[in-house]
């Protein structure tokens, strides 16, 4: 026994052999307080530690049993470690409003070789040249003989070429996965969609304007463009451009209520897969960037302003017998008319003199305020940076009011014009233009620029132009097309107007009882032909384009033609009450 109670009575102790311990308890090991406490503490510590470890091991063992025996049903999904490819997202696609792919990024193989691994460069080069059509055997042989470990053979090969090279089985020749931006519809939408550079950054068009969204790679960008309408407009404009030997053409189809651009065409166009070969003229977007004096089309805006301001009524008229003199300047009509004609006739027969009278009565201040409200004094704002800055005379004199009223002396882009005409035809609300698809029924932030009544009167005037006036070739039976022709001389380099160079345009809307879409067509420098008796005006050149386009796109847009009795019924609804039953003579 080790340790004893000091205060215990003396007890006889013996050794295991039986020997008597004697008086002094020789076996007894006495501990004094310090050693004893230390030992006690150590023993306690050992016990506690042992207890803790036992608990820990019990826990581990228990969990092990739990995991292996009872399954791992509640385990969270395995987090996938991102590979190098996934870390860089693929550029998103660009679609049209119906989901057709306008631009997309595809994986493409590029052929490279390690010259150190090529045993016979000449033979390898010969066989590679057989498999890859555009590769020169001599050049490749040179490259393969170099003392490098990486040389390109050919970049961006097609799957067939890749299979052919693979079949050769030349050691040292390998493929590198690269990405290529592909434009399935090429020149048809190239000016809107744009281009990317070698690193995949957008450098023009939507590719550049929405670069952030596209680089994100999450969702494709849906444009408001309708590929079918784009094709139809481009085809008709190209035909007109060829017939009249124009140097260019532009066209727009816009939703009059939502401001969505369904089609934007500028000819000549360029092939996005070979942008270097395109001329600057082909890269120039005439529909958005070009600014032109629009000519007689502006008469609609002058009439709208005067009617809305109340300075003139539809039943009023002006004497247009005598030309207007301003300094050494004379304003005449293309087809002079004698006598007093009413406002509808002024628009129908496109009288400059009558329009100037209307503008002067309304006043310069009103005209400028109206142009400002319609957005004609600043470049049209939409997603792309390509938007032409309008040219306005500065300072603005009275003579400018006169010329601007019939569209001369002020140059605007077709985008601005189409937006202004949308407001005139759709009930008086100016829509914001956009190239991105809007959900049907989405709220659009419009500004009111005209009253509904004025818009209704303007619709009738526009319909008159096509029904009986200068725009008769724009009529598509049953679709109630309305609009205005415009023929304006181009400015010559040496100041003043060029005699034989003009812009022939037509802006129209349909169906005129409830206009949904505005169409603009323009041919740059058309020349008269025999069939048009030498004329190359808006009515002969551009109005037929609009008429044919309306006939082809109306079924696509779900607009039914008004036939027979319906047609007469809707015609009646367009004509204002005070004019019903009055027949206008076409001069």
């Amino acid at each position, binding site marked *: 026994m080790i340790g004893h109670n000091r205060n215990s009575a003396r007890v006889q102790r013996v050794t295991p052999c039986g020997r008597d311990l004697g008086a002094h308890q020789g076996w007894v090991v006495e501990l004094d307080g310090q050693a004893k406490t230390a030992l006690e503490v150590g023993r306690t510590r050992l016990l506690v530690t042992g207890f803790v470890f036992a608990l820990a091991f019990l826990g581990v063992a228990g969990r092990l049993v739990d995991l292996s025996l009872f399954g791992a049903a509640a385990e969270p999904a395995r987090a996938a470690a991102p590979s190098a490819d996934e870390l860089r997202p693929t550029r998103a696609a660009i679609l049209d409003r119906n989901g057709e792919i306008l631009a997309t990024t595809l994986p493409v193989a590029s052929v490279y070789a390690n010259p150190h691994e090529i045993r016979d460069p000449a033979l390898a080069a010969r066989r590679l040249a057989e498999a890859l059509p555009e590769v020169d055997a001599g050049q490749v042989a040179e490259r393969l003989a170099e003392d490098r470990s990486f040389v390109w053979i050919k970049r961006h090969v097609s799957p067939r070429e890749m299979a052919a090279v693979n079949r050769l089985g030349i050691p040292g020749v390998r493929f590198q996965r690269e990405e290529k931006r592909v434009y399935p519809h090429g020149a048809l939408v190239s000016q809107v969609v744009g281009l990317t550079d070698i690193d995949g950054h957008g450098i023009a068009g939507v590719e550049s304007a929405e670069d952030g969204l596209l680089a994100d790679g999450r969702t494709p960008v849906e444009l408001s463009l309708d590929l079918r309408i784009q094709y139809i407009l481009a085809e008709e404009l190209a035909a007109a451009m060829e017939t009249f030997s124009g140097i260019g053409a532009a066209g727009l189809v816009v939703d009059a209520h939502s401001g969505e651009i369904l089609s934007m065409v500028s000819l000549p166009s360029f092939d996005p897969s070979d942008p270097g070969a395109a001329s600057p003229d082909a890269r120039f977007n005439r529909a958005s960037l070009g600014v032109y004096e629009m000519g007689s089309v502006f008469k609609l805006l002058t009439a709208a302003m005067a009617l809305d301001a109340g300075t003139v009524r539809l039943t009023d008229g002006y004497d247009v017998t005598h030309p207007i003199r301003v300094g050494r300047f004379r304003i005449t009509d293309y087809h002079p008319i004698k006598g007093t004609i009413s406002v509808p006739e002024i628009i129908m027969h496109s009288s400059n003199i009558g329009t100037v009278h209307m503008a002067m009565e309304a006043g310069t201040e009103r005209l400028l305020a109206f142009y400002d409200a319609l957005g004609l004094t600043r470049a049209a704002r939409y997603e792309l940076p390509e938007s032409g800055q309008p040219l306005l005379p500065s300072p603005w004199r009275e003579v400018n009011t006169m010329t601007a009223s019939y569209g001369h002396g002020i140059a605007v882009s077709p985008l601005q014009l189409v937006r202004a005409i949308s407001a005139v035809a759709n009930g008086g609300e100016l829509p914001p233009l956009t190239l991105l698809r809007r959900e049907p029924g989405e709220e659009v932030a419009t500004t009111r620029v005209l009253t509904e009544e004025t818009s209704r009167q303007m619709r009738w005037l526009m319909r008159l132009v096509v029904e009986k006036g200068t725009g008769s070739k724009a009529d598509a039976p049953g*679709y109630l097309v309305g609009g205005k022709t415009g023929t304006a001389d181009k400015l010559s380099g040496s100041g003043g107007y060029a005699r034989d160079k003009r812009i022939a345009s037509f802006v129209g809307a349909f169906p005129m009882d409830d206009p949904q879409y505005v169409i603009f067509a323009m041919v740059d420098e058309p020349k008269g032909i025999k069939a048009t008796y030498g004329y190359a005006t808006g009515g002969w050149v551009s109005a037929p384009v609009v008429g044919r386009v309306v006939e082809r796109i109306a079924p696509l847009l779900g607009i039914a033609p008004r036939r027979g009795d319906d047609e007469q019924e809707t015609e009646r609804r367009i004509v204002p009450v005070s004019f019903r039953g009055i027949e206008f003579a076409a001069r």
Partner: protein
Amino acid sequence: MRWSYLFWLVVLAGAAATLFEIKHEVQALEEQLLQAERRIRNERETIEVLRAEWSFLNRPARIERLAREHLGLVPVSPDQIVSVDRLPPRPEDFDRVPVALDSLLPPAKPQQFPGLAVTTVSEAQR
């Protein structure tokens, strides 16, 4: 005492073996997963390529040419579009056979054509 040693030794060996077995299985599954993911990625790329090709084949110029050459289709003219309510009212004997054969056949009744929705003349005019 020795038996308990043996027992625990066996248990230890068994635990180690099970551990290695499970680890091996997990590795094999991970390998399979990676392969499946690689295959999915390849398929997705192929789908994207095919979508681009489909869009290319749907070029309006090409479709127009094919429609004209093989189907003889031309752009629809407004005369060809008419709404149902503009059709003239149906004559009473529209779906009856000619008079000469009338005696041979039973009279035409709406019940003979179960799939057809029949409206009376007055409904069509509404």
